[in-house]
Every structure is written in C-alpha cells, then in structure tokens.
C-alpha cells in the first residue's frame, strides 16, 4: 500500500527543486511562451495582402465592382499603377505580384469570363489565393467562367483564420513536450546525481516515487496550460466557446498522460541528456505529424491512422478544438477523455513495473 506521507515527502522536496532551479522554471514558463510566439507568427497559414495586378480593359461599373470586391478585403492589395508598365510575368518573377486579374473589354455585357493568374511557386498559398478569389467572385454574384456557382459554407472558423487551428494545436504540443520533459528529467537527474541511490536504500516503493514526482508537476502542467491558453487568446484572438471547467478537467487528464509518458522515458534513460532527447523525440514529431495537428488523420494511410491511436495529442486535439471552437460539453468528449485516462493508467503501471528498486 503506498504511503501518503512518503509521497508527500517526495512531492514537497520536488517543489523545492522547482522553486529553486531556474532551468525548470525556464522549461515551464519561457519555453511555452517562446514556442507560442515563434510558431504562432511563423506558422501563419493565412494569406494577407497578396499583391494583385489588375488589368481592367472594360473600365465599366461591373469591372470596377469586381475590382473593389477584391480590394475591399484584407486578402489582396493592388499593385501600384506605375508597376503596371512592366510585363505581368516580370512582376511575378520579381515577386512584386502574386496574382493577376485580367478583365476583358466587354466584361459585364457580352463577356463574363475573367482570368486569374496565380504564382504557384508556393502551392499552398496559391491554393488559398484561388479559394479566396473564388469566394470573392461568388460574393459579387458574377458567374465564373465554367458557370459553376460554388458556395461553400465554412463552419466554426468562417474566416479560415489559421490561428483558430494552430493555437489549440500548440496547447496540445507544448503541454505534452513540457510535461514529458519535466518528469523524465526530474527522475534521471536523481539517477545522475546519485541521490536516487539514497532513495532506493529507503523503504520507498516505486509507486510512491512516481506519485511523488507526478503530483507537483500536475499542478505546474495545469498552470502552464492556463498561461498558454491566455497568451494564445490574447495574441491571436482565438475564441473560447466551451465551458472552462470542462477544459480544466480534460486538460488535467492530458497533462497526467504526458507526465506518465515522461515517467516511462525515465525508466529507460540513465542520464538527463538521454531523457531530454527521448522525451522530445517521443513528443515533438509524433505530435506535429500524427496527431491531426498539421495533417488531418482521415487523409492518412490506414497504418498511420492506427498509429494515431497511441498519440495522446490526437485525443486532446479533438478535446481542445471541441471546447474552444465548438463549445463541446463532457458528453461529447468523454470518449477521448477516457482514452487519455486509460493511457495514463497503463503507462503508470508499466513505469512502476519497470522502475528498478535496485541498481543495475
């Protein structure tokens, strides 16, 4: 039977370490903020202020209405007139224009076709520019050349703001990284310093050590989640449509899962260096690539889809996007939550069994 007083002794000691070790504080507070800001501004997947060259041969009310429709959005800006003396291809090559809109002479009367040329050297942006342009053309009520009137209704993120997509994702990514790092480093540091030897001589059990290590970091992890959430909302204006207590409950489960992952790492890693590498290796790329953060799970090959089941972030992403963007409640999220709980318990059991109470 694990003893509460022993767990408390270990947890209290851990709190002293946290408060006095500047490195831990850096991992906990500075790293998430830096990541949020760097990722947030660098991974911006929106297009804004695309330089658009307009060649309006019609110069009538219809053509002006169309051009205004483009300019009145934040997505496009007109390439200044003086640049218009250059050939469009030249402007593309010099990256002074990313798209050009050619309106034929009889536009609005006998002619309904316009030509939009897009620089697709960056295919993602090109795709987005095309979508935005289509949306604008549709909104003016003027039919496009094929005569297809495409109207997509975009839910939850009508402006397709990428911050709506990456801020929840970043919360998931940062939390799993930080938490796995914290527990794995904390245990491997004791192995490295030799203090673990002193603990192993005592009657403390593996379960007591693991619990004593997890509890203080659970509090820290939750605190970290709140900070990231607050900064994410402040800097990137992401909404929070769900219930805060639901967020706390499920984030608690996710933090627990991530800490247990760190514990598991620490049963393998002998040094802090090794623990750090393993913790990052097991969290960073798998979370980025396989959680549905960057690439939708449904469009992955079947084998990779199966693999996403063991990535904690794939559950938490459903949860956090659900809460922040869709206002999901517990009933809609409990399955993902139970999966996280199951993973935590499983990892804790494996860690406790693998944790050696003797030196090797």
């Amino acid at each position, binding site marked *: 039977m694990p003893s509460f*007083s*022993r767990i408390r*002794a270990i947890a209290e000691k851990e709190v002293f370490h946290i408060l006095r070790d500047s490195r831990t504080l850096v991992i906990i507070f500075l790293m998430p903020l830096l990541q949020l800001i760097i990722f947030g501004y660098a991974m911006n997947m929106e297009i804004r202020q695309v330089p658009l060259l307009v060649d309006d041969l019609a110069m009538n009310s219809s053509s002006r209405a169309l051009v205004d429709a483009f300019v009145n959005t934040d997505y496009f800006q007109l390439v200044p007139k003086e640049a218009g003396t250059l050939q469009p291809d030249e402007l593309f090559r010099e990256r002074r224009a990313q798209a050009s809109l050619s309106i034929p002479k009889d536009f609005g009367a006998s002619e309904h076709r316009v030509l939009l040329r897009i620089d697709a050297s960056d295919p993602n942006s090109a795709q987005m520019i095309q979508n935005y342009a289509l949306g604008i053309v549709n909104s003016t009520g003027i039919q496009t050349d094929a005569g297809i009137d495409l109207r997509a209704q975009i839910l939850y993120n009508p402006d397709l703001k990428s911050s709506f997509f990456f801020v929840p994702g970043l919360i998931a990514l940062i939390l799993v990284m930080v938490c796995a790092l914290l527990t794995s480093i904390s245990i491997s540091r004791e192995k490295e310093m*030799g203090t673990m030897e*002193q603990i192993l001589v*005592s*009657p403390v059990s593996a379960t007591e050590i693991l619990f004593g290590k997890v509890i203080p970091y659970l509090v820290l992890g939750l605190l970290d989640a709140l900070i990231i959430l607050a900064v994410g909302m402040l800097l990137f204006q992401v909404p929070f449509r769900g219930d805060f207590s639901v967020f706390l409950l499920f984030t608690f489960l996710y933090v627990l899962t991530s800490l247990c992952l760190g514990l598991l790492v620490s049963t393998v890693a002998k040094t802090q260096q090794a623990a750090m590498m393993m913790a990052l290796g097991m969290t960073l790329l798998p979370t980025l690539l396989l959680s549905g953060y960057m690439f939708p799970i449904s469009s992955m090959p079947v084998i990779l889809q199966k693999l996403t089941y063991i990535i904690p972030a794939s559950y938490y992403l459903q949860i956090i996007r659900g809460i922040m963007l869709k206002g999901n409640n517990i009933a809609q999220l409990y399955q993902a939550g139970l999966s996280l709980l199951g993973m935590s318990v499983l990892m804790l059991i494996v860690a406790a069994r693998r944790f050696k109470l003797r030196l090797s």
Partner: protein
Amino acid sequence: MIHTSHLVKQFGSFKAVDEINLEIGRGEIFGFLGANGAGKTTTIRMLCGLLKPSSGEIRIDNLDIIKHSEQIKHKLGYMSQKFSLYPDLKAIENLQFYAGIYRVSFEPALKRLEPILEQFGLSSILKTLTQDLPMGYKQRLSLVAALMHDPPLVFLDEPTSGVDPQARREFWQVINDLAQSGKTIIVSTHFMDEAEYCHRVIIMQDGREVALGNPAELKQEYGSANMQELFLKVLGVSDAKL
C-alpha cells in the same frame, strides 16, 4: 547482525566480489579495506540491498535480504560514496526529506540527533543551502541524514574521502559513539590510519578476502608496525611499487 555466505557478484565475465563470508556482530565497527576496484563498494551495495547478489546469501538480523527487503530497509542507514544530498535544498530540508521517506516525525528525530549536530557544528548551518556548505560539513550532514530513522545498522561507503585530517578525526569520534550506543557500523575506507578505529577489518583484493581480523592482531600476525605496512604486506606489494 550481518551474515553472508559465499557471496558473489558478477558483472558479465568480471567477478567484482568473489566468495565473501562474513559474520558481523551488533555494536561492531567493521571496516572494508582495499584499493579502488577491490570490491568494497560492490559488497556494501549488496549488503544494503542496492545490488542483487549473483549467488550466495545475505542475512540481516536473521532475515534474508531479498525476501524481506522491505523490513530490512527500515533497519539500515546508508551514506553513499558519492555525496548524495540535494544541493538545492537547505540542510534542514534534506533532513526533513529523509525523515519523510522513512516515515519518522521530524522534530523528535532532530531532537534525538541534537548532540551529534552540536558535535559536528551543524546546528548553526541548518538553514544554509547544502550546495553552499564546505565538503566536510556536507559529509557530516550526510551521516546525520542517514541516522534520521535511528537505524541499528549504518553503512558508510568511504565517508571521509576529501575531508581534512582534523574533520576525519571528529567524524570517527561520532562513529565510535554510535557503535558504543549499540549501532553496527560498516565502513569502507582507503585511509589506512582509519582502519585502526575499526574493531575488525577485511582486506579485499580483486573481489576476494585476503585478510580478516582485528587490526592489532593482524599487525602482530604479519609483523607490521602499522596498518599501511600490513596492507602492503598482505597484498604482496613492496613499498617501492606504490
């Protein structure tokens, strides 16, 4: 108090400890002597349950160390070769932690240890961060930490390495007092003068016992004037070689 028979520890093809048979009584100060790599630390680590013997038996208070490890762990205090208190904790916080993991109440334990704290000059530095203490104080603090739960059996693995002679003498004074109060002390050292403080010593070489007995009797047996000479004679090394 401690009984071992045919104790062997093998790391791969390397026999670190080879057929060690010991019988150590209550209140005894028992010393492990030997050069680095002779098997002292490995033996001590097996005796306090940190390492599992490859073969052979260890009984402490007539309990098998593997089967009754939980019970035995309460009975022993251990001070490892490497300084292993938390440098970022205050001295008193380190002591609190060890009281906590042995589930003894801190205040009475501290009161009980007050004479030793005084003797060691630790009372005034309890609020100091451990990393700011000089080496000698750290060692003494380690010993006090190992005594928090009042164990009848205390293992000290090279407790005085890196400590000046004056501090070593004080350290041994406390060890002596502890033995007199009935505690069994197992200590390893490579300072031959310290061996004189032990009631009995075992001299080890390549994991094996080369001599075992009371220091005075051993000196007589080998016709040596001091422990240093005895040590070299027993190991068959001439003075010139060292």
